[in-house]
């Protein structure tokens, strides 16, 4: 019995350890099919960060925000523009993207946050639209509908110019290279690279900027880290060897841009976000937010500066979305306004609602269900894709009616609501009490 509290305390660490091991387990059981899963889980974790950020406003403070994707977009475009134009590094852009988004949240919140909650919903909805219009129409800076390609992960002085390479391509290229003398000077010609699955336009940029050799790349050059290509990333087993030497993990150039790199980076990011959320919830600010969500008048009379608390919550939420945007832009290598549609704002909201407003593990559960669920169903039933949004919409409404506190939601809703049984809710529309 004494094991139990110990287990409880160590559960987060065990879980984290499990998540770190997961890609290895997946590769062990599924072989090369595991990469798709590693990618999907990485995306799920990124969305979980966004949903967690949204949960600061919607869940903790009871402020309905329908333009969360706009803050995400601001972070993504901040990084994309800064890194493409000025060559800013990812690590510098991360706080900067968060800052830009937080600032936007602050400016938007100032006039509206004191108004009724549902006004904020509409204003943020409109804000999301306006941001998208600006991104579409401010072509000189944002590339309009075409977006910004070739963003990559820029770390320090090195520009990592490629994005994802599909697994079959990566495999065939790996095979190709294993036939070469990796230590030697044999060249990979353009046509070989293309037949291996590389995007010709990507290659064009790489080849033309290499002043040493216009005709091909040497394997040595590739491996020396001057160019970190996805297809040159070590297999996941090899990456695990580098895990034993953590310092090398993120400096191992070929490792960067592998799905595993992004997986681990996002896992780290999510862990920080979870830690932040849990600490925030228990902090003075967090408790003020919960108090004002439950009863704003009472909160005010207890001396809580509700406007200030709401503004901070709003800015913090936007900041996490902005940072997630930076990560997304770097990983996806390409962004355009389509990624930041209202659909995704609603998706984040659905994740937060499904798991439980105000609950950290609920949010992760919501993200898991709503991201990996469709991913799984897509494989089994290809036609499910069409019904995904219908299902999400209905689920949101149903969740509010049956279990407004979400799957993991703590006792956060007003007591009255929780006490009313499902039966009464479905059979009778009661007059207000």
């Amino acid at each position, binding site marked *: 019995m004494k094991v139990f509290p110990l287990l409880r305390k160590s559960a987060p660490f065990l879980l984290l350890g499990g998540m770190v091991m997961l890609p290895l387990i997946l590769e062990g059981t599924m072989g090369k099919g595991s990469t798709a899963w590693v990618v999907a889980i990485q995306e799920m974790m990124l969305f979980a960060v966004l949903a967690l950020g949204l949960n600061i406003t919607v869940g903790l403070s009871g402020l309905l925000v329908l333009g969360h994707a706009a803050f995400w977009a601001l972070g993504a475009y901040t990084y994309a523009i800064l890194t493409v134009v000025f060559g800013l590094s990812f690590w510098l852009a991360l706080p900067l993207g968060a800052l830009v988004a937080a600032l936007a949240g602050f400016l938007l919140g100032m006039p509206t946050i004191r108004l009724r909650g549902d006004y904020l919903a509409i204003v943020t909805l409109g804000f999301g639209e306006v941001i998208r219009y600006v991104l579409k129409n401010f072509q000189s800076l944002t590339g309009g509908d075409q977006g910004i390609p070739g963003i990559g992960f820029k770390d320090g002085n090195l520009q990592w110019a490629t994005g994802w390479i599909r697994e079959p391509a990566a495999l065939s290229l790996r095979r190709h290279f294993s036939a070469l003398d990796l230590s030697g000077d044999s060249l990979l010609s353009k046509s070989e690279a293309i037949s291996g699955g590389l995007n010709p336009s990507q290659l064009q940029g790489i080849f033309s900027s290499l002043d040493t050799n216009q005709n091909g790349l040497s394997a040595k050059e590739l491996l020396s880290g001057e160019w970190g290509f996805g297809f040159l990333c070590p297999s996941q087993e090899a990456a695990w060897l580098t895990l034993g030497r953590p310092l090398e993990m993120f400096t191992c150039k070929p490792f960067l841009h592998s799905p595993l790199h992004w997986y681990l980076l996002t896992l780290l990011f999510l862990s920080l976000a979870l830690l932040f959320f849990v600490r925030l919830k228990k902090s003075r600010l967090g408790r003020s937010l919960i108090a004002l969500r439950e009863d704003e008048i009472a909160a005010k009379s207890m001396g809580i500066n509700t406007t200030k608390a709401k503004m901070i919550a709003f800015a913090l939420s936007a900041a996490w979305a902005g940072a997630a945007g930076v990560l997304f832009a770097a990983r996806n290598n390409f962004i355009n306004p389509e990624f930041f549609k209202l659909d995704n704002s609603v998706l984040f909201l659905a994740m937060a609602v499904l798991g439980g407003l105000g609950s950290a593990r609920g949010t992760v559960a919501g993200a898991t269900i709503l991201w990996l669920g469709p991913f799984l169903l897509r494989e089994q039933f290809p036609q499910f894709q069409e019904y995904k949004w219908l299902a999400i919409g209905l689920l949101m409404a149903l969740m509010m009616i049956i279990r407004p506190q979400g799957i993991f939601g703590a006792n956060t809703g007003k*007591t*009255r609501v929780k*006490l009313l049984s499902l039966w009464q809710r479905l059979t009778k529309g*009661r*007059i207000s*009490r």
Partner: protein
Amino acid sequence: MTPNSSTPLLQISDLHVRYGPVHAVRGISLDVYQGEIVTVIGANGAGKSSTLLSIAGAEKLSSGSITFQGIEVGGKKSPFMVSRGVNLVPEGRHIFSRLTVEENLEMGAFSLKDPSPIPARKEHVFATFPVLGERKDQLGGTLSGGEQQMLAMGRALMVAPKLLLLDEPSLGLAPLIVKTVFETIIAFRKAGTTILLVEQNANMALRHADRGYLLENGMIVGEGTGKELLVDPAVREAYLGA
């Protein structure tokens, strides 16, 4: 002790009302006979309003039974109760401030399927409260507190209720107006309406009531005729400040 030995107009037995963890009414039983004025007195939070609200169908009862004219009506909704002739004038009057005085009265008659008696009843209300007739096109919100109380009572009269439930009709009114309100209540009774009155102003209430119940912490702790209670030393100490 009862002035009328036939079956009561309203009979409540073992009524319980809970709001979540709060147990507001804990097993109240009381009877109201045709033509009586019965008052329930008690301190704030004793469960008086909850009792009235659950009789009027605006509050769910947790258990117990309410019979009106011999028929079980516990758990029925307000529109049903109004159509049966049970009407509540709630604490704080709650007149529709953005409707005119006349529209307020029409809303009182909403549940009538047949609109033919409405004009006559309006005239009756205007005759009872002349000030309402003078101000019939004025918005309800522009009336004074006393006038609003009259409007609230007039609104209830539009359906010619058999049983009128009055919740704190004298609350916040000047003494002179309070007197008028009680005179009106007497007049209602003369016209054939039975009255169940909840009051904090125990002195006034007991003086005008045929019978009274004392409510404490959701339970009935005493009952008697108005006069008996008025001279009861315990009542005098607790509610009459003497």
